[in-house]
Each structure stands twice: as C-alpha cells, then as structure tokens.
C-alpha cells in the first residue's frame, strides 16, 4: 500500500449544515486520515468504506469522498496527486472496477439466458407453441377476426353467392381431409395483391389477385392446403404470442424507452414464418391434397408462378422497407419438393362450373364489418 506522507488540503462537511471546514487529508496505511483544527478532531475512513462522487479517473484533478462509516459527512480534496494515489489505495473507486462490478451479473445473466433459449430450441421444444396449443378455440377465433380486420382494412369482401359456395365446397373437401371438426373459413378480399394468409382460429384469407392469377382450381387448392397446413401447425397463434412476448422483452431490454423499437420488433415478428414453418406447412399441404385426392401439381404450378413474378419484379421494382431483413425465398426448392412426390389418382379440385363461379366471386362485394361472426357449418 503506498502511503502519501505529506498532508493535502481538503474541505470537510459534516452533513448537518451547508458550511464546510478546512481539513488536512492524508492517505494512511488502512484508510484516509482527516484532521480538523479548532476544535481539533481526527478521523480515519477505512479504504473499503469509501465512496467517490464520481469514478476516480487517471486524470482526475480532485475527488469528493464519503464513507459508510460516517454517513452524511464528506471530504473534498482538490489535488490530482491525491486522486492518483487514492486509485492505488482504493482500486474499487476506479471507473473500470465500478462498471465491471455493476455489469458483471447482467453479462453472465444474459449469457445464461441466451444459452438457455438456445438449449430449449436445440431440444426441439417450442414453449411459445405449447402456449398456442392451450389457447381456447373461442380466443383463437377472436384473435383471428382481429387479425383479419386489421390486415384487410379498406378492402371489400368478395360475396357472389355462387363463388362463395364454390370456395366453401373446396374448403370442405380439404378440411375433411385434415380431419378438422369444423371446416376452415375462407374469406376472399377484393384486393389486387397476390396473397393468402392463415390467421388464428382456423381462418384463411385469400385475395382476388391470387384467384385471378391462378391457372386452375388445383392451384387455388394447393395454396389453400398450404394455409390450412399453417393452421394445423398453429403457426398463426404462435406468431401472435411471439409478437406480444417480443414486444414485452424489447420494452424491458430498452429500459422502457424502446417504444419505437418495440414497434419495430412487432413488425419483424410479423414479417412471416420461418423457413422451417413454411416447410412444415408444405408437407401438411402435400398430405392434405393426397387425402383429398386432389393433384399436387397445382401447388407446384403455383410456386412456379410465384418464381416468375419474383424474377420480373426484381428487375422493375425498387426495394421495399425491411426487405433488407428478408431473404431469398427458396421457392424453387419448394417447387422441387412438390414435383418429386409420387403420382396418385386424383380429380380436379373443382368442377369447371364452380371454378368459373369462383373466378367471378368478386363481381359482388360487401362491407366486411357486416359479415363479422358468421360461423362455418359443422361437418
């Protein structure tokens, strides 16, 4: 322990009033020695009881000390030499020591948490999915209705009775093959975008763009089977629970000031399913189509169509926001998966008359709000 034998000038406050007294301060063997005059008084603050108003840096020009042994009292020493020597006697006052002391538990905690999460996923258990599995059906349906309402906002529901009946027929055929107790509800929206998505509670949304661009009823059946596949695997439910959990976690991590980031986190979670999830839905689709005796060539054709549009799009369009975080969809691989399946006896997904009606489903549209809560007939 280095000892500074020459006394240094300081100012001592007892913490009872805002006045201060001159003091002579010395770095002793076991602590800081403080001597006051008139009246004479001497005290020693042990090094391990010391606290500094700010971390003592190498180039500190002064230091303000308190001690847990004498609460309220403080001594201010305006001397760079004193500060430098104090760093050697009481190393716990340096910035590095303080920061590491505070950060260490959280660094190890974070590592442990990340390791735990990695372990859970490596073991193949998805806690979020288990939670999704225990959600009551009525909650799922309501979540689904909310999701549909927000995702299709501003678009009308396609409602030509014959077209809707055709879609119901197709959904019934695939739902039976899936062994579902109630048929999947399929809503078609008057929306030029080529899109289809599954929402919680056994509901599927398709766009006019998809129906129009599809070359055959088998293609529509392929897409519907894929979306029902998502439904069977509870992907939409899992996605929503993950989004809520992620928002809470981000809020917690950002110390509460992560409002904007929390929204970004939600966006990221809603970007879509993982490659694994898509693969699972594809496998379900292949099984469903086979059970329903519908050819899986339609699904393959549809993938081919998406690929072509992607290639055209790549040339003409600029990047959309968040595309940076998306990646190359392995559409070609997925097409190959379907093409490699063995042939089996099949019939067209819909008869020609129903197919023509389905294509005209958007000739009559209505406001979706008026249709809320309509249930499918039990099988």
């Amino acid at each position: 322990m280095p000892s500074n034998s020459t006394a240094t000038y300081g100012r001592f406050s007892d913490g009872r009033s805002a006045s201060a007294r001159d003091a002579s301060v010395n770095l002793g063997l076991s602590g800081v020695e403080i001597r006051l005059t008139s009246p004479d008084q001497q005290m020693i603050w042990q090094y391990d009881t010391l606290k500094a108003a700010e971390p003592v840096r190498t180039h500190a020009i002064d230091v303000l000390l308190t001690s847990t042994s004498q609460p309220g009292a403080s001594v201010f020493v305006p001397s760079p030499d004193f500060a430098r020597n104090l760093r050697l006697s009481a190393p716990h006052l340096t910035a590095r020591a303080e920061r590491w002391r505070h950060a260490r538990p959280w660094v190890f905690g974070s590592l442990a948490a990340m390791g735990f999460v990695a372990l859970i996923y490596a073991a193949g258990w998805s806690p979020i999915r288990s939670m999704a599995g225990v959600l009551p059906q009525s909650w799922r349906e309501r979540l689904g209705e909310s999701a549909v309402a927000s995702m299709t906002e501003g678009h009308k529901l396609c409602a030509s009775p014959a077209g809707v009946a055709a879609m119901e027929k197709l959904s019934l055929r695939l739902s039976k093959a899936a062994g579902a107790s109630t048929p999947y509800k399929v809503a078609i929206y008057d929306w030029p975008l080529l899109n289809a998505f599954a929402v919680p509670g056994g509901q599927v949304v398709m766009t006019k763009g998809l129906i129009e661009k599809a070359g055959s009823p088998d293609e529509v059946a392929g897409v519907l089977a894929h979306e029902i596949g998502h439904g069977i695997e509870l992907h939409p439910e899992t996605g929503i629970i993950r989004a809520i959990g992620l928002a809470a976690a981000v809020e917690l991590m950002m110390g509460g000031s992560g409002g904007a980031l929390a929204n970004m986190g939600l966006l990221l979670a809603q970007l879509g399913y993982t490659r694994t999830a898509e693969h699972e839905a594809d496998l379900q689709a292949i099984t469903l189509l086979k059970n329903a005796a519908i050819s899986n060539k339609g699904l393959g054709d549809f993938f081919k169509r998406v690929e072509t549009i992607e290639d055209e799009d790549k040339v003409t369009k600029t990047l959309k926001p968040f595309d940076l975080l998306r990646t190359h969809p392995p559409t070609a691989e997925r097409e190959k998966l379907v093409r490699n399946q063995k042939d089996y006896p099949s019939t067209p997904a819909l008869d020609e008359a129903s197919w023509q009606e389905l294509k005209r489903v958007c000739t009559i549209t209505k406001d979706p709000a008026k249709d809320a809560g309509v249930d499918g007939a039990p099988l």
Partner: protein
Amino acid sequence: MHSILQAAGPGTDQPEPIDIRFDGSSGRMIGLGFINGVLKILTLGLYSFWAKTEVRRRIWAATRLNGEPVAYTGTGKELLLGFLIVFGVVVIPVMLSGVAVSLLFAGSKEALGLYQGVLYIAFFLLVGNAIYRAQRYRLSRTEWRGIRGGLDGSPGRYGWMYFWTLAAPFTAAAVLAGIVAWATAPAVGGAIMLLGMLGMLWVLPWRANKLQAAITNDMRFGDRPLTYSGTAGPLYKRYLFAWGGNALIFAAALGATGAYLMQEDRYINWFVLKIPPALVELAPLAAIWVLTLIASAVVTSWYRAMQMNHFAGHTHFEGATFRGEATGRSLMWLVLSNWLLSIGGLLAALAIGGTLIFAFGTAPREVIDEVAAPDRAAGLLNLLLIMPPIIIMTTLTATFAQFRSARYFLSRLKLDGPVALGAILQGAHKRPARGEGLAQVFDIDAF
C-alpha cells in the same frame, strides 16, 4: 485549486456569495458513451440504468458551487427497481388489457378506438405525475456538502395541473367548434377547430410559468425552500415570434408533404390501393419532417432562452436570486449542433451496419407474399450486424449531447446575493426509495 475554494474558516454563519460553475470536458463523454453502448449490448440493455447513473454522476460532479462539486448519489439499482415496478403495474396490464380488448371485441374499430382514447387520456394524466416524481428522485439524490435537495409536494396535484392546463382549453375549443358546426356547417366548425387549436397554443407560456411556479415552490435545499415570483406576461412578446415562425414552418411542411403525396399518384397508391411505399419513396418525407423539427427547434430557441432566463430570474433562495444568461443565438447553435450530431451519428451507424451486412450478412431480395417464405434466421443475422453500431452510436451521441446541454445551462446560471450557508441544515423530508419508473417508461427523463 486551492484558490478557487472560499477561504472560509471553520463553520462560519456569515452570508457568502455563491459562485456556480461548470467544469468538465465533453471529450471524455465520448469515451463514456462508447463504453456504455458496449456494456448495454453485452447485458441485453440492462446496463442502461447504470449507464444513465454514471453519466449523471459525471455531470453533477462537473457542477461546482464555490469550487466544490455537487454529488449525485442515486444508483443504477434504484432506477432498475423503479422501472421494474412500473413495468409490472403499468406496462404489463396495459399490454394484457390491449390483448383482452382485441379478444372481447374482435375487429370492432369503435371498441378499439374507445380503448385507445381512454388509454391516451390516462397516459396524459400520468405524464405530469411522472415528471414530478422523476424530479423529486433526482433532487433527493443531489447533494452539496452533504446537504440534500428535495421536492416537498404532491405529484398528483402537479400531474393534474399538467393535465387540465392543456385539456381545458382543448375541450373548450372542441366544444365551441362543435356548437358552431351544429349551428352552421361542418366546414365552418372544422375551420373554427383549426383556429382554436392554433389559438390554444397561446396558453403554453402561461402554462409553463404556472407549472414552473408549482414545482419551484416545492423545491428545497436542506431545510430551506426555493420560491418563485414570476408571472407569464413578459413571456408573450417573444412567444409571438416563436408562434408565428412555427406556424409558417409547419404550414410549409404540410404543403410540401401534400405536394409530394399528390405527385405520381402516391396518395392513391399508398392510402387507397394500400400498396406499401418503397424506402426510397419515404426518404423525402422523412427529410421534410426532420428538417421541420430542426427548423422549429431553431426558431423556438429565442423564446426558450428567454423563458429560461425568466424562470431563473424569478427563482429565489434565502434572499438571493438566480440569473440566467442564455441567449437565443447560443441556444440555437446548441440545439442545431446537437441535432446534427445525432443525425450524423445515426447515419454513420447505418453506414457501418450496412457495410457489415454487405460483408457478412444476407443480400436483400424481393418477396411478394407470405407463400414465399422469408428466412428468419438470416434476417436475425442481419439484425445482429446492424444493431450494435446503432446502439453504440446513439448512446455515444446522446451522452455527448446531454453533457453539452447541461454545460450550456449550468454555465449560464448565476446566483446573485450572499447566502448564509451555515444556517442551512439537513432537511427532514423523506427520500423516495426508488427512482423514476414512470418517467423512464414515458421516455421523458432528460437528465
């Protein structure tokens, strides 16, 4: 060093002048900001409470009264606990109630709108409360010569004042517009509403003065109170300039936004056909509004400088009176340079992150629909590459800017008149055990 200190003898009760100074180098804050950013990443953000505490300790210690530093005695643990409690009591219930409302009233826009309206009002009611509590915590952790500051009043009372001084004129304008719309035509009512909103801004100086009086009169140093004697009248001449300038700036920004939306059918595409806009198409809009905010802050600087001097000049302590020496021009430079620093830091972070993604990440590709799957794992890799530079840079620039602002205000604050320091005793007011949870959730803790 020795000469800066007042050569006072042992505990004299004689009144002495108080010299306020700010002695600190902002350069050192860059290093601190960098280290704090790195530690935040390593601890998944949890270190931010300790980071904030160390920045405050540095700023407080750089503030010198008669050569002796002011000490900040708060801890990161107190901030963490305060945050966790508010997280449990406010954030989690709000999130759960949001989920519950979506479940119970599936897809009903009216129910969701009502819920959000109630939530906004409740939040607004809590904001003033949060400001007061944060201020109380910080003052209770501020010591000079071992004597603590304090705020001896009711957060609820301040929170309510914060609410009604804005809510009452707003309601009055809305009711007036409603009556006019009912009596004449909706368009006339709309015009009255717009004028009412613009006119309502004239309550702001009165409101600021009222709130300042309320909080200053609750402040204590030791057992002695601070008092405030200001009235809003003198603030209005400068306010006319700020109000007019801002009206022009926002009118110009709205005009530019409208003109941009009308070009190339953007309005139709985005809002009617709901085709999501491309990033490059949004960039001009972002630029317009960032410039607008900067211009607004610049124009408001003269008023803010005057308001600061007005507040200081009417704040009294033990017979002495504070004096503010802010000027519009210097404050404008502070605001402008802090903005440029933040934007520059963010752009630099994006450039670094972009380079990292280009080097190690996954290249972007067009995706048409959900049927074509994005790969979350690769997206996560890109996110991991771009987030660290952003976190480090924003922490760094925010720390630097915060220090510069503190230096600006504290080095322009004087206290005129002697104070009998020996007569100021430690106060008996109770110290809040935890800090600032609410203010952190609302992100309104400036220091």
